[in-house]
């Protein structure tokens, strides 16, 4: 359903909202309003998204031809390292939580702000401080260890700016910790009267699960990076095999965080999908509690599967067996979600607005990413495809096909609330289609390449792989264009877009019950909640708020 005509009551001066509550740099850089902080994050992560995309573009250009002709192998190592570092730590991990979560969790629970507004602002400054270190490293020649910083390459042999990059990641980790901590405390203590745990929108549940991972996992990567840094700076020998130290121990500690970090990226996207699917099929979610606890289940199981990154790193075969079984278990809560979304769609009263297109794309692509994850959890198959393009394709189906589709779906869904403007629907649908096609053309050939044996992290390859690589590079070009479109029309809509009504999608969410854009304190009257979320019945469907 598209937005009905909204008759502006033609006020003499525009209503006070969070965007016009103050002007000037100070009113943004010293704000404690969660909505403004979300926009600060939006600007920063958009920059890093395009920076990481630029590295990806250079990688794909190099791989257009079999010979290593565009860049040297050292440069290529730096390109994929910085693509990984920038995209994982500076875009994907903060993306949905720090922008959409920051903006909408307080609104969804009927609060005026997060529990700790100053901590929230501090988290953005910490993020920027970390970003500066990493940018410094990028500008001064980059780092070549891979985003995983494996020892002893990172501690003893690499000539890149390992310490600056690592310090950047270390610092940024604390912004993630503070965001997670803030969310947990907010969800526990700031809910509106009547908003019980099982009346919370599923977006809030999935962010609760995400925050648990942020709070419990991030400190471990922080201390691991600390150990790598002191090893490099002070010549302590914590992972040094020459002293009897164990480089595989580094991998254990690294993946103890970095595997759950995958769920930091995907769980918030799943939260977005739950909101979008219910709104645009006009149905209550199928099995609310199952979807809610599936998020928690993914968060818990996510901490028990890190060893599946090390099937060929020399860990014990029995540990490998256990990690393999546990990895299969993660498929259960993930499948619960996919089945429940599908059941929600069943006999729904559909409308294919842009957010819904992204949601449907997410469900399909996440399913492919998830299934190939099961291939990789199988010990024998993993030995065959380990460190090939199969892995690359798998995790890009989860992170790009899943997390970024969710992020873009959420951005379109909530853009009217964030900006108070409607984006151009036709162009947005076109962009969603371009992104879907470009994505699949980029990454599906990589499954085949990987299965045929093309290894990751090489800048040259045998000529028989060229056709599929050309397809992949062509897809990446289409995908890149697709990503520029939303940025362009979102910016355009800020100035020229139609004014958004309070509730253009006829959603039941609390965040839609206030004006667009919301006032600084979110609600004119603090809301009281007296019913479950997602109650879509014929008489309650109201397009205009």
């Amino acid at each position, binding site marked *: 359903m598209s937005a009905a005509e909204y008759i502006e009551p033609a006020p003499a001066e525009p209503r006070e909202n969070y965007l016009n509550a*103050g002007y000037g740099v100070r009113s943004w850089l010293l704000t404690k309003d969660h909505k403004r902080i979300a926009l600060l994050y939006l600007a920063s992560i958009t920059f890093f998204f395009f920076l990481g995309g630029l590295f990806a573009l250079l990688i794909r250009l190099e791989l257009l031809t079999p010979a290593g002709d565009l860049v040297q192998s050292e440069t290529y190592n730096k390109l994929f390292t910085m693509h990984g570092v920038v995209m994982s730590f500076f875009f994907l991990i903060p993306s949905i939580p720090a922008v959409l979560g920051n903006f909408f969790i307080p609104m969804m629970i009927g609060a005026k702000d997060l*529990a700790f507004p100053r901590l929230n602002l501090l988290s953005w400054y910490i993020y920027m401080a970390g970003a500066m270190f990493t940018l410094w490293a990028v500008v001064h020649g980059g780092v070549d260890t891979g985003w995983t910083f494996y020892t002893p390459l990172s501690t003893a042999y690499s000539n890149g700016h390992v310490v600056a990059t690592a310090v950047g990641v270390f610092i940024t980790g604390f912004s993630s910790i503070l965001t997670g901590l803030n969310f947990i405390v907010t969800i526990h203590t700031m809910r509106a009267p009547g908003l019980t745990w099982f009346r919370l929108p599923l977006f809030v549940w999935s962010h609760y699960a995400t925050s648990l991972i942020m*709070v419990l996992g991030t400190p*471990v990567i922080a*201390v691991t990076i600390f150990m790598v840094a*002191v090893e490099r700076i002070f010549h302590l020998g914590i992972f040094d095999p020459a*002293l009897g*130290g164990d480089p595989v121990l580094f991998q254990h500690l690294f993946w103890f965080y970095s595997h759950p970090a995958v769920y930091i990226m995907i769980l918030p996207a799943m939260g977005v999908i739950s909101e979008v699917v219910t709104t645009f099929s006009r149905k209550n979610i199928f099995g609310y509690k199952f979807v809610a606890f599936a998020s928690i289940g993914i968060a818990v199981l996510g901490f028990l599967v890190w060893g599946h990154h090390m099937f060929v790193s020399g860990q014990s075969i029995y540990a490998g067996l256990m990690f393999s079984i546990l990895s299969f278990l993660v498929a259960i809560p993930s499948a619960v979600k996919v089945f429940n979304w599908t059941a929600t769609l069943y006999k729904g009263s559909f409308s294919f607005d842009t957010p819904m297109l992204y949601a449907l794309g997410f469900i399909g692509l996440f399913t492919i990413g998830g299934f190939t994850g099961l291939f990789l959890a199988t010990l024998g198959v993993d030995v065959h495809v380990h460190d090939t393009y199969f892995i690359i394709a798998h995790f890009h189906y989860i992170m790009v096909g899943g997390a970024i589709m969710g992020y873009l779906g959420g951005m379109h869904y909530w853009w009217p609330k964030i900006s108070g403007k409607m984006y151009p629907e036709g162009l947005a649908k076109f962009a969603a289609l371009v992104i879907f096609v470009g994505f699949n053309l980029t990454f599906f050939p990589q499954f085949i390449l990987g299965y045929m044996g093309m290894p990751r992290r090489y800048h040259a390859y045998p000529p028989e792989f060229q056709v599929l690589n050309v397809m992949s590079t062509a897809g990446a070009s289409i995908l890149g264009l697709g990503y520029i479109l939303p940025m362009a029309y979102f910016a355009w809509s800020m100035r020229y877009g139609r004014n958004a009504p309070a509730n253009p999608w006829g959603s039941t969410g609390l965040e839609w019950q206030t004006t667009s854009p919301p006032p600084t304190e979110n609600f004119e009257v603090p809301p009281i909640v007296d019913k479950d979320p997602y109650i879509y019945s014929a008489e309650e469907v109201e397009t205009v708020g």
Partner: protein
Amino acid sequence: MADARPASPASAEHPVMLQHHFDSPAQQKDASQLGMWLFLVTEILFFGGLFTVYTIYRWSWPSGFADASRHMDWKLGTLNTAVLIFSSLSMAMAVHSAAVGRVRRIIPYLLITMLLGATFLAVKAVEYTEHIRHHLFPGPWFHYPGPHGRPAELFFSLYFAMTGLHALHMIIGLAILTVLVVQARRGRYSAAWHTPIEMSGLYWHFVDIVWIFLFPLLYLIGRHIH
């Protein structure tokens, strides 16, 4: 500006420092306490990484680690343990004084805590100097006679990383207490509102507890093994 709403928060004459986005002081206090405990959970996991590495290496090189730990001065370690336990006592007394409204006693107790914290750091500096003088700092200058040189270097790598990180937490604790003293002098705290003192107390006790684990692991276990 976004936060310049008129009828809002923390002004000095307002006895209860209620921020504008909370409904009640009880809600605000709940949030602070939950937030602080969660922060301490992250700290446990932060130190937990190092403790894990220590445990695994001690398991791999038991006699090397035992041998290296005999280079620790257990007397200074014991002294420091006592110093920190007394600092926790005086910190607890500062919190208690605030809670029962004896606000004049807050500053003396905080100062005693800081003095004990500084004493700990001074003793630690003496120990570090001794270790470095005996070439026990890992790296090119490390020199360790006997058959256990390589695990001993691992041990000292972990020793400096763990106690260094702990000392950093002590220094941050001293900075926090300094802020508390300044605010207490301005009469900010009362029986009704002293959340910062309480939360800082939790932090201080946590840092002490880390030492309570570090001390036996690094100084005591295995001294008697030959």
